C-alpha cells in the first residue's frame, strides 16, 4: 500500500483540503491527472471492527493530501512521542552539555570586557538634579503638599475605661502582684542528693512534729527515674490552699522614703573657715610636783598663776614658760583666780578652809600700789564681826614677804573662788549638803563677808558673777540658779539635764552659760531662749572638769578626764532671732592621764586665741 501511496504526488500545495470537499478528486498528480479520492465505503461499524481487529489501528492515520490511510513506522511513533513530551526530535541530541563559564564573579586577569566605568556613574546626574529641583520648586510654591496626617478626631479610638468608677481604677493602679512561691529546692527533687534525704531520726522527728511546726511540709524521697514518681496526691489540696492564701492574706504597699544620710547632718561651716583657734601645743610649763587643780591668766595676758596639790602657787611668764615666782601656801590649792580688774594685781587662792589674797607684785608700780591701797583700806569696826562665820586677818613676816596679804578663814573647806568683774568682790564656795552656808561673798575694800542665801537649795558646785549686770550664777548639782543681787531674788533656774555639774562659765556678753558635768556633757544655755540647754555636746569620753569662754574670740573650751581639751567655735549674734552657731573645731591632746585624772582646768589667754590647760600630770600646757 505504501508503494502506491508514495507514487501519488499531489501537486496542489499547501492549501486547505476543504476546498476539495465537494469534488471527487483531491488534487492532481505530477502528470496533471486528477487524483481521485479513495472510495470511502467504511461506515462506523467497519471502523469499529477495524479498531477491534487491526492491531495497527492506533498507528494508522489518514493522509489528508491523498485521503489514504498511512500506518506509522516505529521510528515515526517514537518521534511523535518525543515531540509530545517536549523533547528534541533527534534522540541523539544531548541537551545537558556542560556549560562553559564565560562570566563569573571572579575578577579575571584578562576581563571579558575592559571598558572603563562610565563617567556618569560617578558624577551626580544632571537629570536627577533637575528633577529634584523641580520637586523642590513645587514644594516651595505649594503645588505639592505633604501627606495630610489622618486626624483621629472622629473617634476611631476611645478610652475604654473612661466611664469606669474611679475607685476601681485606683485599685487597678494599686495592684500588688502576689508574692511568688519560692522555687523548688533540692528537697523537692525526685532524686535529691543523699544529704537531703531524711535519716530515721529525722523522719521520726518529722512525724512527731505538729504539721505547722514542720520545717518541710513533705518528706524528700528518692526515685530511680522520673517515670517512677507517682502522682502528687495533694495537688488539688495544695492549689486550693494557695488560692486561699492569696485571697485571704491582706497585702500592703510599703512606702519607702529615700533619704540621703548626708542631708540629715546639719550644715556646719568647716573648721578651717573659723580660724583662729588653738591647734598645736606650743609650750609646757613644768615645775609643779602635784596635780595642777587650777590656773588663771592675768588680765594683761603676761602672767599665768597656777595652784597645785603640792601646796604651792606658781607664777609663770606666759611667753617663755618661765616660772618666776613660787609661793608655798602650805596646803593643796583648790582654786586660783586672778583679779579681772587691770588696775589692781591680786590673786585669790582657795586652799583648805582659807582664802588667801596674794599680791604677786608682777605689775607696774602704780598697779601694785593701787592694789596695796585696796587691801589696806581702813577696817570697819563691825559690831558683829565676832559673830560672823568668817575671820579676816592680815599676814605678817614670812608670808607677807611671799606676797600673801590677807587671809580669810572660812568655817569649812573652800572649793572655788570667783571674782566680780570690778575686782572688789570675791565669792567663795564651800560645798555642803546640810547647811545654808555654802556661798560667801567678800568685799575686799571693806573687809566684809556676807552669806547671800538663807536656804540650802542643794549642793553648790561653782559660782560666778555676771560680767556686766548685777547677777550671780550659782551652779548646784543639777541646775544653775541665777540671782539678781540688787532685787535679792532668783530670776531664773537653768535645768542642766545632767547628773552632776562640775564647772560653769559665763559668756563675756552675759547672755550665755556653758556647764560641764561629770557625766561627760557640756551644755550651752541661751538665757534669752530657754531654761533648757540650747545644745548638749557629748564629745568627751569622760567627766568634764573645766569649761572656759574666750573674752574676745568666739571660742570656748572644755577639759576632761580623758586627757583632751576640746575647743569649740561659738558665735553668738546680737540678733535675738538667730541662735548661736556652735561648731567643735579642735581636739587638743597632750596631757597624760595620771590616777584616772586628765585635764583639770582650762582657761583662755585674754587677748590671743590661745588656751591653757592644767593636768594631773603636773604640767600646764599652752596651745596656740
Amino acid at each position, binding site marked *: 500500500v505504501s508503494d502506491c501511496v508514495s507514487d501519488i504526488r499531489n501537486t496542489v500545495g499547501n492549501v486547505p483540503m476543504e476546498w476539495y470537499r465537494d469534488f471527487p478528486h483531491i488534487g492532481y498528480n505530477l502528470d496533471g491527472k486528477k487524483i481521485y479520492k479513495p472510495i470511502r465505503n467504511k461506515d462506523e461499524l467497519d471502523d469499529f471492527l477495524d479498531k477491534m481487529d487491526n492491531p495497527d489501528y492506533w498507528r494508522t492515520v489518514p493522509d489528508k493530501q491523498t485521503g489514504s490511510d498511512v500506518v506509522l513506522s516505529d521510528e515515526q511513533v517514537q518521534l511523535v512521542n518525543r515531540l509530545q513530551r517536549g523533547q528534541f526530535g533527534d534522540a541523539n541530541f544531548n541537551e545537558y552539555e556542560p556549560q562553559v563559564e564565560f562570566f563569573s564573579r571572579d575578577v579575571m586577569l584578562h576581563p571579558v570586557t575592559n571598558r572603563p566605568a562610565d563617567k556618569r556613574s560617578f558624577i551626580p546626574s544632571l537629570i536627577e538634579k533637575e528633577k529634584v529641583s523641580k520637586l523642590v520648586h513645587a514644594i516651595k510654591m505649594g503645588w505639592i503638599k505633604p501627606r495630610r496626617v489622618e486626624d483621629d478626631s472622629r473617634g476611631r479610638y476611645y478610652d475604654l475605661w473612661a466611664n469606669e468608677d474611679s475607685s476601681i481604677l485606683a485599685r487597678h493602679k494599686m495592684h500588688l502582684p502576689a508574692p511568688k512561691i519560692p522555687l523548688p529546692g533540692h528537697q523537692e527533687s525526685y532524686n535529691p542528693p543523699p544529704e537531703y534525704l531524711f535519716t530515721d531520726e529525722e523522719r521520726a522527728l518529722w512525724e512527731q512534729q505538729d504539721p505547722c511546726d514542720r520545717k518541710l511540709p513533705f518528706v524528700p524521697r528518692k526515685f530511680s527515674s522520673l517515670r517512677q514518681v507517682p502522682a502528687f496526691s495533694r495537688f488539688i489540696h495544695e492549689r486550693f490552699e494557695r488560692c486561699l492564701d492569696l485571697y485571704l492574706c491582706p497585702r500592703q504597699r510599703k512606702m519607702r522614703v529615700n533619704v540621703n544620710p548626708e542631708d540629715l547632718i546639719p550644715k556646719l561651716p568647716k573648721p578651717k573657715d573659723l580660724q*583662729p583657734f588653738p591647734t598645736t601645743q*606650743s609650750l609646757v610649763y613644768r615645775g609643779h610636783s602635784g596635780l595642777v587643780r587650777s590656773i588663771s591668766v592675768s588680765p594683761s*595676758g603676761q602672767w599665768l598663776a597656777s595652784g597645785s596639790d603640792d601646796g604651792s602657787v606658781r607664777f609663770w611668764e606666759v611667753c617663755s614658760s618661765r616660772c618666776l615666782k613660787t609661793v608655798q601656801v602650805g596646803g593643796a590649792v583648790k582654786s586660783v583666780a586672778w583679779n579681772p580688774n587691770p588696775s589692781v594685781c591680786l590673786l585669790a587662792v582657795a586652799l583648805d578652809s582659807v582664802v588667801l589674797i596674794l599680791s604677786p607684785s608682777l605689775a607696774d608700780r602704780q598697779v601694785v600700789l593701787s592694789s596695796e591701797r585696796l587691801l589696806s583700806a581702813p577696817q570697819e569696826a563691825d559690831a558683829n564681826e565676832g559673830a560672823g562665820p568668817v575671820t579676816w586677818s592680815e599676814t605678817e613676816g614670812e608670808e607677807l614677804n611671799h606676797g600673801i596679804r590677807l587671809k580669810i578663814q572660812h568655817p569649812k573647806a573652800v572649793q572655788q573662788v570667783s571674782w566680780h568683774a570690778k575686782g572688789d568682790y570675791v565669792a567663795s564656795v564651800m560645798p555642803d549638803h546640810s547647811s545654808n552656808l555654802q556661798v560667801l561673798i567678800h568685799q575686799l575694800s571693806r573687809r566684809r563677808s556676807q552669806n547671800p542665801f538663807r536656804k540650802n537649795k542643794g549642793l553648790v558646785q561653782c559660782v560666778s558673777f555676771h560680767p556686766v549686770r548685777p547677777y550671780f550664777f550659782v551652779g548646784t548639782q543639777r541646775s544653775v540658779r541665777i540671782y539678781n543681787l540688787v532685787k535679792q531674788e532668783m530670776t531664773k533656774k537653768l535645768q542642766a539635764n545632767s547628773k552632776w555639774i562640775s564647772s560653769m562659765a559665763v559668756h563675756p556678753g552675759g547672755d550665755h552659760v556653758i556647764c560641764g558635768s561629770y557625766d561627760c556633757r557640756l551644755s550651752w544655755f541661751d538665757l534669752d531662749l530657754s531654761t533648757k540647754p540650747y545644745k548638749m555636746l557629748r564629745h568627751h569620753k569622760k567627766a568634764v572638769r573645766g569649761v572656759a569662754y574666750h573674752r574676745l574670740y568666739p571660742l570656748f573650751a572644755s577639759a576632761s578626764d580623758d586627757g583632751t581639751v576640746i575647743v569649740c567655735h561659738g558665735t553668738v549674734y546680737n540678733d535675738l532671732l538667730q541662735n548661736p552657731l556652735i561648731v567643735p573645731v579642735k581636739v587638743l591632746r597632750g596631757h597624760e592621764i595620771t590616777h584616772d585624772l586628765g585635764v583639770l582646768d582650762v582657761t583662755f589667754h585674754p587677748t*590671743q586665741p590661745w588656751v591653757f590647760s592644767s593636768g594631773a600630770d603636773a604640767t600646764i600646757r599652752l596651745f596656740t
Partner: protein
Amino acid sequence: MSQLQARFFTEDKRYIVDDVPFSIPAGSEVQDLSNVINKLLEANNASHSKVEFDFLVRGQFLRTSLSIHMDTEGISTEEVVELEYVERITAPEPEECMMHDDWISSVDADAEWILTGSYDKTARIWSVEGKAVMTVAGHTDVVKDVAWVKRDGLTSLLLTASLDQTLLLWEWNSERNKLKARHCCRGHTGSVDAVATDPTGSKFCSGSWDKMLKIWSAVPTDEADEVEEPADRPRKKQKTQQLGLTRTPLMTLSGHNEAVSSVLWCDSEEVCSASWDHTIRVWDVETGGMKTALTGSKVFNCISYSPLCRRLASGSTDRHIRLWDPRTKDGSLVLLSLTSHTGWVTAVKWAPSHEHQLVSGSLDNLVKLWDTRSCKAPLYDLAAHEDKVFCVDWTESGLMLSGGADNKLYSYRYSACQTDAGA
C-alpha cells in the same frame, strides 16, 4: 634617662667654665652636677682641687634631682636650662659653749665681745673666745634684752633691759674691766622686752609690755633728768638704792594694741617694731608718727632687718618665718615664708654680710640656717640646744650665737662665703 640641655655660669671668677650648653641627665642631683663642674675645671686647670658646689635654677636652690625640681617649679625641659653654681656653703662649726647660771634671754655680739642677758637678773660680757669677762648685775628682775651702744677705744656703752621696767645704760672699760651704771632709764610701766640702738649710737629705742615704744638718748651725761614724782608716795619710803642717774625718754611712740616684742632701727631715722597685736609698724623717729603697718595673722616674736636686701624677717608663733618689704605701701604682703620649725620662732637674724642668709631659733630646740633662695628647707639645722632657744645673733666676723633655756650659749664659726657676695 632623658637628657637636658644645661648651661653653667657663675659669678665667681675662680670657677668659670666655658659658656656652652652641656647635655646632662635629667635625673642629676646636686652631687652629680658638682662632679661635672669639677671635671670641667680640672680639664681647664690641672691644679684645680675639688670644690663642692650648689646650684641655682632661676634663683632657687636645687635640692632634689633636676627633673623633679623643674617639674615642681614648672620650668620647661625643652629649652636650655641656665644653672648658676656657687661654692657650697660649709656647715657652721661649733666653737664654744658658754655656760650660764640661768636661762639666756638675749644675746648681742660685736667683733670683740659678746653680751648676754640672763634670767638670773644679770647680764654677762664674754670674750669671743668664750671667756667670761664681766657680770653686769644691777637689775632687780630678769634681764630681757641687751644691746651694745658704741665703743670708743676701750670704753664701751651697753644697755640692759629688764622685767623690772627699767633699762640700765652701763659704761664698761675693757682694759681695767671696770663697770659703771651711768643711767637708769625709767618710764615704762611694763617689762621692757626689747631694746635697740640706732646706727650712730646716740639714741636707742625700747619696746615694752605696756604697748609703748620709747626713744631715749644714749649719750651719758652727769645730770639726772627730772622725774615727776607720783602724787601719792607710798607710806614707807622705798629704798631707793638706785643705780645711775635717772633718765627719761625723749619720745614715746604709742599705737600698738598689745605688747611690743621686738624693735630695731632700719636706719637712723626709722624704727621698726613687732608686737603681739599681729602687726609690724614702722615709725618715723623725727616726727614720732607711724609710717606703715604690716599686718599679719599671728603674734610676732621677733624681727630682723637686712640693709643688704632691704627685707624684714619676722618670726611668729605659727612656726613660720616671713619676709616683708617694709617700704611697701599696701601693707601686708608676705614676700616669702620659710617653714620648717615646729615651734614658735623666737629669734631671727639676718646675716650681716650676706643678703640671702638668715638664722632662726625656735622653741623646738633648733637653730636653723636659711637661705632665702631655698625656702622649703633650711641649709643647716644646728641641733645643739637641749631646750628652748630664745636668742640668736650673727656677727660681722662670721660668728653665730644662740642661747636658750638650757643655760648654754653656743657659738658657731661660720666661714662666710665671699663668693656669694654678688650672687
